[in-house]
């Protein structure tokens, strides 16, 4: 287990310069995610064109893993349909939690998150933004959604 495996260059870069960071007005869905154990808090906002995520941005505060994961997520799901984005959520979730997970290569930059599974205390940091996104996508009326909590 190596720190270098957790804090890979891609993670450090997206933490330092998070992509798609900030507000999004107007938006079709806005969901807040909260990790009460560590105080991480972020809001994911997105626009849908038909069934496709045409734009997505996030803001909030969190650790490097949480920030980088959200930044990578926004890059990865932009342009994807709801179903495709949810499918990606499942694969990332497996990558974070399942030692036997394969196919990391197909995940592109998101594969950089695979180091997290060696640090069980940090899985929630990486998955918070994904749970928040999934909640926004699964709802019929995303504006009315309650906040997502990892607890």
């Amino acid at each position, binding site marked *: 287990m190596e720190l270098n495996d957790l804090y890979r260059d891609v993670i450090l870069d997206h933490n330092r310069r998070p992509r798609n960071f900030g507000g999004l007005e107007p938006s079709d869905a806005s969901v807040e995610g909260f990790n009460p154990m560590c105080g991480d808090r972020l809001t994911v906002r997105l626009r849908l064109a038909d069934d496709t995520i045409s734009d997505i941005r996030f803001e909030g505060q969190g*650790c490097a893993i949480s920030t980088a994961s959200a930044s990578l997520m926004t890059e990865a799901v932009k342009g994807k349909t709801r179903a495709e984005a949810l499918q990606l959520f499942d694969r990332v979730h497996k990558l974070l939690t399942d030692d036997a997970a394969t196919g990391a290569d197909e995940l592109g930059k998101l594969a950089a998150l695979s180091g997290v599974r060696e640090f069980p205390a940090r899985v929630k940091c990486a998955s918070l933004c994904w749970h928040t996104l999934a909640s926004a996508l699964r709802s019929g009326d995303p504006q009315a959604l309650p906040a997502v909590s990892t607890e």
Partner: protein
Amino acid sequence: MNNTALAARPSSFDVNALRRQFPVLARLVRGKPLVYLDNGASAQRPIAVIDAVDDYERHHHANIHRGVHTLSQEATALYESARDKVMDFIHARSRNEIIFVRGTTEAINLVAQSYARPLLQPGDEILITHLEHHANIVPWQMVCEQTGATLIVAPIDAHGEVHFDAVAALMSDRTRLFACAHVSNALGTVLPVRRLIAAAKARGIITLIDGAQAVSHMEVDVQELGCDFYAFSSHKMYGPTGAGVLYGREQLLERMPPWQGGGEMILAVTFAKTTYNGLPNKFEAGTPNISGVIGLGAAVDFLQALDRGAAHAHETALLAHATAALRQIPQLRIVGTAPDKASLVSFVVAGVHPHDLGTILDEDGIAVRTGHHCAMPVMEFFALPATARASFAFYNTFEEIDKLAAGVERARRIFV
């Protein structure tokens, strides 16, 4: 870094002999010797405590106060002797003033519900300070909601210091109860409790002191302090978890109704009327944490046998060493710089989230707390989501603090 300032200073206190009494300190974490700097969250157990609990579990366990058989009598004697030990430890007048509870949180809730709730009227005030742990905020908020009373919060300054005048100015004819920490868990600030208690008493205000962070660091004499209630937990003073103490002045405890109903707290029960037991049993409904209380008694013995003056001097030297070492790290800011502090340091490093810092330090076997420390209003005051906190015990060493400083610097280099 300036090596003169970081050179380990000699101490007459025999830390290594003391460390051998704490088995966990000999273990490795991630292949490195454990550096345990999370004593503010929970301190480690000496062999004396482990053995006392083990001996009870192996040879003396039975329910207390219930049986005429030998084991029950032995268990009762062990449990009740812990009460006597705690009474001596905090200099209470009577064993009736020592109520065993699950911990500080339960002790404060007991006072809120049993003392404050029947007393409070709309317009009454409860006064606390801005640096309280959630356990000394939420129970008062709950009782305010139940009674229409108002919670008043005394300010802290930019150093995390609580000024006597600022608190005393908020004590009024409407103030019914004043509650504050003896030592801040998030910042280490030692509050001027003796003066605050005296000011409250002069106005007839009842006082509760949250001593969770104090009893392990300093001698506490409840009579000298003059407080009405004092609450603390076993596990922060080298005893087991799930046990704690509410000290209350006997006269007040006598007047208070029981908090929970059940066995142990009654004299006689009929369906028409129940006669409550006297102190302290009135507040100890149900089978208590017998082994935890016995372990707490052993922790008291352990502390009483220690040269506490020397232990305190060592902790003070550790704090000075840590403050100096951490201040040499660029972009590091110590949060909480009151002149009178217990031996803990809360800090942030620009560009390094405390959670990441905690993971990186853990790779070196160093345990620190990261987060809001159950004191979100303190974090909000300093406009921080979280800090890292290194909290020291008398078994920590200067070398361990140097490892902490090196680990923090290593983390900083990863992120800059």
